């Protein structure tokens, strides 16, 4: 078997023992890698109904089929656990060296069970596993942790996935970070924190062989060169932050906790402004010829020197959505999140909820008492100093930061219960996860895609905003096509998340990103790597299967139709300004679109999966457990 070792490494932190599970070629053909394989391993290894912070919730790491080869943007791995944010599947992706080291160490996947009594750094040294004491690493930031491990092991080719101080203190939306990249969103960092797992380090020294290196090299060379052209210029030059101005023009830039979709201070937080004033250098994940990471630095004021990679989603959440028009503040906030290992989107949106709660008089100045501000401070929209102080309190879990570190859902439920308020009306989350930076009230297909997302509302797992923005459909109304569009876009994304390949390469195969443009090359890449004989028509089921196993996981955890919903604001408050003014997604519209979606998926009206569908996709064991 090429492309795989055939082996999954199991590690038990409680007993400090390991074992190897061998998987068949047929199993790999179903689950391929990345998000799909990680979610499948989660299905196989979790105790259903367990608490996300219990030892029964495993950490499932699944490598990519192309990791360690020259296939552009193929150096990625999937990470899945039950999410403490949503109680459903938490599946993330991260790029760079970690996946490549793991591949060379000879493991297709790693499942980490149990919980350690003391802080531990698991070191996978090719075939050997060592449980290293991590006490000395506590309190170190993400990058510092990696460097300290490399120094201790005296090998700069050791790659680590780590948690920072936020994960140690179990900020609910803490991330896992490797090589400066994050496996973000659903709170993996706090799951690792609950296991006292500070880092997983890997040294892999073996070479990687593929079935047909000549073909693989030829295809990879051409894609690498194509990736220097117009198909990726958006990502290479300005990065995704170029969305700031574009979305503002459409009235879709979340502003002041998603109250509006246009921001008056947009010029000084744009990708163009960032490029001119703060950009230091563009860097890439390992194995990526595009390089989208815009390393940016604060060059003046109290936070001079703070530097991190800036992309659109983290940027909107920490600028327009806080009413902040100062790019330096945004960089500082994102730097706090990245260096301490927490999700900059969830952090920014939780702060914006707190700002609105303050402005509506429910939070008072004294709620924000801390060591730095013994009298507290006024957390108003646009107040940079207060925003930074709040982010630091979240990171340190100091004062009100402890509650805000639980995310928007828990924070608003707690405050409403304590104070009899109705902050849930502006708590921006669905299934407990804060949404992406696209105002879904002006994007009806995307509002459906967000509501039905298996890990919550997410721009990465569905590109349902695409038909809305491209004008393929009327973005302000609903019709019977939306269900099929939501299915098509989420399953298209799932193919990339499973291989995994970064979606930024999608136009570099033939110039066209649709299935007809991308799948033929992807088939050749898989076959040249593995020696399989996949056909064009085998690709779509890879995405559908990946999406279905996540949905099946959720059903087993108690998902019901009413969980596919949107934040209250998106369903009740029309925007008042800009090109999307007057619009929101009513309950009637959403329920209608959900009907069209469940039908397109071949599911029941209640959103459950028929046994026949699961058997057709090659998972009879899943059909047995949750099929109807």
């Amino acid at each position, binding site marked *: 078997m090429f492309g795989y070792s055939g082996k999954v490494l199991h590690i038990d932190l409680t007993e400090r023992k390991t074992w190897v599970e061998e998987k068949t070629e047929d199993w790999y053909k179903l689950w391929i890698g990345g998000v799909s394989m990680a979610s499948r391993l989660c299905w196989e290894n979790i105790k259903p109904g367990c608490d996300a912070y219990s030892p029964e919730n495993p950490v499932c790491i699944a490598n990519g089929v192309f990791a*360690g*080869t*020259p296939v552009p943007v193929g150096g990625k791995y999937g990470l899945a656990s039950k999410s403490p944010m949503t109680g459903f599947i938490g599946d993330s992706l991260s790029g760079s*060296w970690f996946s*490549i080291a793991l591949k*060379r160490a000879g493991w297709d996947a790693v499942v980490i069970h149990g919980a350690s009594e003391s802080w531990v750094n698991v070191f996978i040294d090719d075939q050997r596993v060592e449980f290293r004491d991590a006490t000395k690493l506590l309190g170190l930031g993400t*990058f510092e942790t990696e460097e300290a491990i490399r120094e201790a092991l005296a090998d*700069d*080719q050791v790659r680590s996935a780590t948690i920072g101080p936020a994960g140690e203190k179990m900020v609910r939306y803490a991330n896992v970070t490797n090589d*400066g990249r994050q496996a973000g969103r659903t709170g993996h960092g706090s799951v690792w924190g609950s296991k006292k797992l500070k880092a997983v380090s890997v040294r892999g*020294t*073996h*070479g*990687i*062989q*593929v079935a047909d*290196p000549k073909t693989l*090299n030829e295809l990879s*060379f051409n894609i*690498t*060169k194509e*990736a*220097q052209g117009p198909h990726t210029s958006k990502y290479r030059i300005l990065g995704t932050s170029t969305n700031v101005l574009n979305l503002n023009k459409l009235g879709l830039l979340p502003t002041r906790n998603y109250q509006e979709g246009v921001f008056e201070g947009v010029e000084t937080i744009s990708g163009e402004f960032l490029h001119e004033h703060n950009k*230091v*250098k*563009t*860097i*890439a*994940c*390992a*194995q*990526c*010829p*595009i*390089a989208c990471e815009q*390393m940016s630095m604060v060059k003046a004021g109290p936070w001079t020197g703070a*530097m*991190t*990679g800036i992309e659109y989603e983290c940027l909107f959440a920490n600028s327009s959505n806080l009413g902040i028009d100062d790019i330096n503040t945004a960089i500082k906030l994102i730097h706090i999140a990245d260096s301490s290992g927490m999700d900059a989107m969830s952090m920014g949106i939780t702060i914006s909820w707190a700002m609105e709660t303050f402005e509506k008089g429910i939070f008072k100045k004294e709620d924000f008492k801390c060591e730095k501000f013994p009298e507290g401070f006024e957390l108003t929209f646009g107040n940079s100093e207060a925003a930074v102080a709040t982010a630091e309190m979240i990171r340190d879990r100091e004062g009100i930061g402890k509650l805000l570190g639980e995310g928007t859902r828990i924070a608003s439920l707690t405050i409403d219960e304590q104070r009899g308020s109705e902050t849930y009306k502006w708590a921006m989350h669905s299934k407990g996860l804060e949404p992406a930076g696209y105002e879904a009230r002006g994007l009806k297909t995307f509002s459906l895609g967000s509501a039905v997302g298996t890990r919550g509302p997410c721009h990465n797992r569905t590109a349902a905003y695409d038909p809305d923005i491209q004008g393929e459909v009327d973005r302000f109304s609903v019709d019977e096509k939306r269900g099929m569009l939501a299915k098509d876009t989420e399953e298209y994304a799932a193919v990339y998340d499973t291989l995994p390949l970064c979606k930024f390469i999608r136009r570099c195969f033939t110039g066209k990103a649709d299935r007809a443009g991308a799948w033929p090359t992807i088939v050749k890449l898989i076959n040249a790597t593995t020696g399989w004989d996949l056909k064009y028509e085998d690709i779509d089921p890879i995405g559908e299967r990946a999406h279905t196993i996540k949905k099946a996981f959720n059903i087993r955890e108690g998902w019901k139709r009413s969980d596919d919903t949107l934040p209250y604001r998106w369903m009740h408050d029309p925007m008042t300004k800009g090109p999307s003014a007057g619009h929101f997604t009513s309950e009637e519209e959403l329920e209608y679109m959900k009907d069209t979606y469940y039908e397109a998926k071949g599911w029941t009206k209640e959103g459950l999966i028929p046994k026949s569908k699961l058997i057709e996709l090659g998972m009879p064991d899943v059909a047995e457990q949750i099929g109807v």
Partner: protein
Amino acid sequence: MTTTTSKFKNIECDPDLCIGCQICEYVCSYTKTGEYNTYRSRIRTVRVDEVLITAMACRTCDNAPCVTACPQDALSQDPATGIIHINAQKCDACAWCVEACDFGAISINPESRLAEICDQCEDQEDGPQCVLWCPKEALKLTTPEQEAQKARREALKSIKNEVLPKIPLKETTC
């Protein structure tokens, strides 16, 4: 002590352009071994913080210290190209050359028990494969003197706008 020279070509990396993708390492190891393994690459990407990244390979030093250090006389330097050649019969993997190199450009292959160093792909028709593949054109096969010449010209060009308005432009007749 290292003595680089301006006369031999070597693989140069521009750290401003290098994005740290390591594609050079995959291609190098494949070209030399048929496998993708950055441990077997003769060019190595180095990253010391978030933005300080470059790739390094043999600098073809004058009076190469690795050659001097070898107790077995297994290393020799091609007088025309500066490339270091390794005599597989003599090399016993003692790693003195590795220690002698200030640029970390030599490694020992634990399987073949031989020293490995960049040979600029002298057996490849289209030259160094890393240069061919580098997506950002950060890698070049060049000499330090050629780079210095280029730097001088670039420096002058960069002050063009300051200099030109002060020079009265003459009408050209040719």
